[in-house]
């Protein structure tokens, strides 16, 4: 039997933020979505809420957003350093030990060089979300935008170089970099969304504005 909203929508709604307004908005989407019996409508509202909510959250907590971005980059650099140090440390032992065929060793090396950075992005996204549990989606999106900005600069530079020197090699590099960058963005978002948001206190507080 189909339920409205679907469990995926509910999973995403939990990550909108744990503030009273975010929770009330999620409740409104659940209430209206169950009356309309449309998961399409629920997804539309949820994605709109995450975009608008994240923008508002970043705008009202600029310092927290800057700290989240810096934390993300620091963890990304730390992960990269750790993985490459481990690889450099392990490679002489791997070469000496057992009879791994060179082709297999080369393939394994290539797979590791592609998957480890993606894993680093997922780890960084997870860490940013974990450290900003009350506005995890907004802070992950802030970090994602900073990565997107840096990647766009690199893509722009590569594209300019490729056009200037008419190099097929740089063009191939650009295509591979773009594909890897998309995978890294998805990994970052995935890592960020994996963190369980905090459960709010059961007793509701009463607040009167004016």
């Amino acid at each position: 039997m189909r339920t409205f909203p679907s469990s995926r929508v509910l999973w995403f709604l939990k990550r909108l933020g744990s503030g009273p307004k975010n929770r009330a908005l999620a409740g409104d989407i659940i209430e209206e979505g169950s009356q309309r019996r449309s998961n399409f409508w629920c997804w539309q509202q949820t994605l709109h809420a995450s975009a608008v909510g994240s923008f508002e959250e970043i705008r009202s907590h600029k310092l927290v957003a800057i700290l989240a971005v810096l934390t993300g980059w620091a963890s990304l650099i730390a992960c990269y350093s750790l993985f490459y140090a481990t690889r450099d440390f392990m490679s002489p032992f791997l070469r000496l030990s057992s009879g791994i065929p060179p082709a297999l060793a080369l393939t394994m090396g290539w797979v590791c060089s592609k998957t480890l950075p993606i894993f680093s992005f997922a780890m960084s996204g997870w860490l940013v979300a974990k450290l900003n549990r009350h506005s995890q989606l907004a802070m992950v999106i802030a970090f994602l935008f900073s990565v997107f900005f840096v990647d766009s600069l690199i893509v722009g530079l590569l594209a300019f170089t490729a056009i200037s020197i008419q190099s097929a090699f740089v063009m191939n590099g650009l295509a591979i970099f773009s594909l890897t960058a998309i995978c890294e963005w998805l990994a970052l978002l995935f890592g960020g969304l994996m963190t369980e948001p905090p459960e709010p206190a059961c007793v509701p507080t009463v607040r009167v504005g004016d």
Partner: protein
Amino acid sequence: MLALIRVGQDAYGVRIAREIRERTGREIPLASVYAGLTRLEKRGLVASRIGEPTPERGGRAKIYFLITAKGVRAAREAHFALKELSSGIPQLEGAKA
């Protein structure tokens, strides 16, 4: 703000969005309703209170919004300004007829 006045005491996200849809025929995303109301609240034109969590909303509480005296004044002034600006414009009168 006008939708908020129309709904009255039990105005919360879903009811305000429904009121706007029924009166204007325009579908407003719930997040936009909240963003607008939050901005009005910061300016002291709207007040809010948190209600009880209910099971049909996945245990999430409603936030009820209420227009303040300052908000009523601002709405009245905006309505008056709109009426003043639109009076005597033949294109608008033609559309009305």
